[in-house]
């Protein structure tokens, strides 16, 4: 049968263009980060040494492990990694606790209101991320709107210290990433066959029981996708801990930024990035497995 995409030379060309682009601008850079993480920082342009050099007519190859030893020896980095994983994990959990019920309710609405609600979920993520985090600065400051409001109501006497604490970071991450949790779960729940639930009810199952035994397992892939879409970027988040966080909310993205822009230690920043990537390999693989299936899945095929 004639098919649009069966013409061989065209096929190779269409594959080659995005393939080469991604190899060059997405994959190759990681190899370079790995390479430079073994270099030494120096005051020159570019600010790192070559791994291979000719010294006194001898081709020398030097692999410098100090950047990694530093990571291990300075308590700061270890705490940064642990704290990032902790904050990302609990933020993901909060997103799930708020996002799942929302996705569930929206998925069971009549089509018209469903579309409007879906639009309302997506709209904030189209407006600037930076500006939405900035909005919380005005609300959470010690003389900000939330404190003024609570003091006006007489609920509190002294302003609450939320800004520059990890509470503010949690609020910021949940706020910014909530739509990414809702959408994949919604996409899963909306395809759910409700006759299964009716059958369970007819057979005498309690609603909570059919939820736990039927709805939850069937929406598991949406939960995984949503959780990974929140957890992975949250581990490396820079803007939110920088603008809302303080000393108790040290995160690794912020440390990498400081190492690069303030200390100008490029090899050090590369080592931070390599360890962060190793930490994220498992979650990224999990996300990839779900996403790859979704990209190739053809309905009724």
């Amino acid at each position, binding site marked *: 049968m004639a098919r649009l995409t069966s013409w061989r030379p065209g096929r190779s060309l269409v594959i080659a263009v995005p393939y080469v682009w991604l190899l060059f601008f*997405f994959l190759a850079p990681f190899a370079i980060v790995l390479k430079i993480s073994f270099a030494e920082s120096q005051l020159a342009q570019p600010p790192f040494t070559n791994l291979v050099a000719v010294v006194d007519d001898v081709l020398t190859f030097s692999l410098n492990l100090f950047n990694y030893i530093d990571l291990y020896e300075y308590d700061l980095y270890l705490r940064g990694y642990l704290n990032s994983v902790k904050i990302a994990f609990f933020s993901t959990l909060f997103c799930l606790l708020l996002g799942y019920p929302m996705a569930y309710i929206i998925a069971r609405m009549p089509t018209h209101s469903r579309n409007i609600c879906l639009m309302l*979920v997506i709209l904030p993520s189209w407006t600037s991320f930076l500006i939405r985090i900035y909005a919380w600065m005005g609300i959470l400051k010690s003389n900000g709107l939330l404190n003024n409001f609570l003091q006006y109501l007489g609920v509190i006497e002294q302003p609450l210290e939320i800004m520059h604490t990890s509470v503010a970071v949690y609020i910021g991450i949940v706020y910014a990433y909530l739509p990414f949790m809702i959408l994949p779960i919604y996409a899963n729940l909306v395809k759910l066959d409700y006759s299964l639930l009716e059958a369970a009810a007819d057979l005498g199952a309690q609603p909570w029981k059919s939820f736990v035994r039927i709805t939850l397992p069937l929406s598991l892939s949406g939960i995984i996708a949503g959780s990974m879409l929140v957890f992975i970027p949250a581990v490396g988040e820079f803007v939110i801990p920088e603008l809302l966080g303080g000393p108790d909310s040290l995160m690794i993205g912020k440390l990498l930024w400081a190492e690069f822009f303030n200390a100008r230690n490029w090899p050090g920043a590369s080592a931070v990035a390599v360890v962060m990537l190793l930490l994220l390999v498992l979650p990224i693989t999990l996300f990839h497995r779900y996403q790859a299936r979704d990209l190739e899945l053809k309905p009724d095929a």
Partner: protein
Amino acid sequence: MHSRWLTRLSWSVLVTGFGFLYIPIVILIIYSFNESRLVTVWSGFSVKWYGELFRDEQMMNAVWMSLKIAFMSASAAVVLGSMAALIMVRFGVFKGKMLFTSMITAPLVMPEVITGLSLLLLFVSLDQFIGWPDGRGVLTIWIAHTTFCMAYVTVVVNSRLQDLDESLEEAALDLGANRLKVFFVITLPIIAPALAAGWLLAFTLSLDDLVIASFVSGPGSTTLPMEVFSSVRLGVSPKVNALSALLIAVVSSFTFVAWWVLRRQERLRLVDLQGAQKQQDQA
């Protein structure tokens, strides 16, 4: 009794969720009309910060720079992303498909600091060995944005391609149309709404990016988020509120119009399909 309780619970969950998502944005917009320099104390209605904003040449230059980069990145990302979607849906198995899929999905979740740092190091190393791209600026930001935006375009176009009925193309091919013509006359118009949605998404993503642009930009290529970030770091500023309100107004009206047009088209298409079905049944 039971179901009324449930309805009430559903409503309170939705109101809480949407309240959480929208109250900060609404407050931001209201306070952009505040007379006072202190952002959180209301002292009367004024549009003076909008005036100040437009007189801020540095900010306006950054707006222009960002729009330019976003336009170029979105356009390139649509081309590359649609090709990638076509490969994923239509090309079946080929050598290295596994790697390709990973490279298409990983940018969706990759922390921005890693993407930014790795691209910067690539550009610096290239400069060292082949003398290209010769410093950093608009070109390097464009490459970086195109790369991370194309993954999003792929996801959007992919779902549309999955729904596309291949028999339409086959019919046209059987009737003697050549492949190029079939692609431009049949395939492209059907996936056009997804291309538009992908372009818009890529445009807003590029317009919004702070972290990656900070790594790969050079002197003279300060984008809007970089400008906003440096002023926000010093604390809240009413000018940024005004800018935010404007951005939100523009982006949300664009999104809304796009959404409305897409839905209308979709509805018309369904009506067409139903009409065709009816005619077939009658015949």
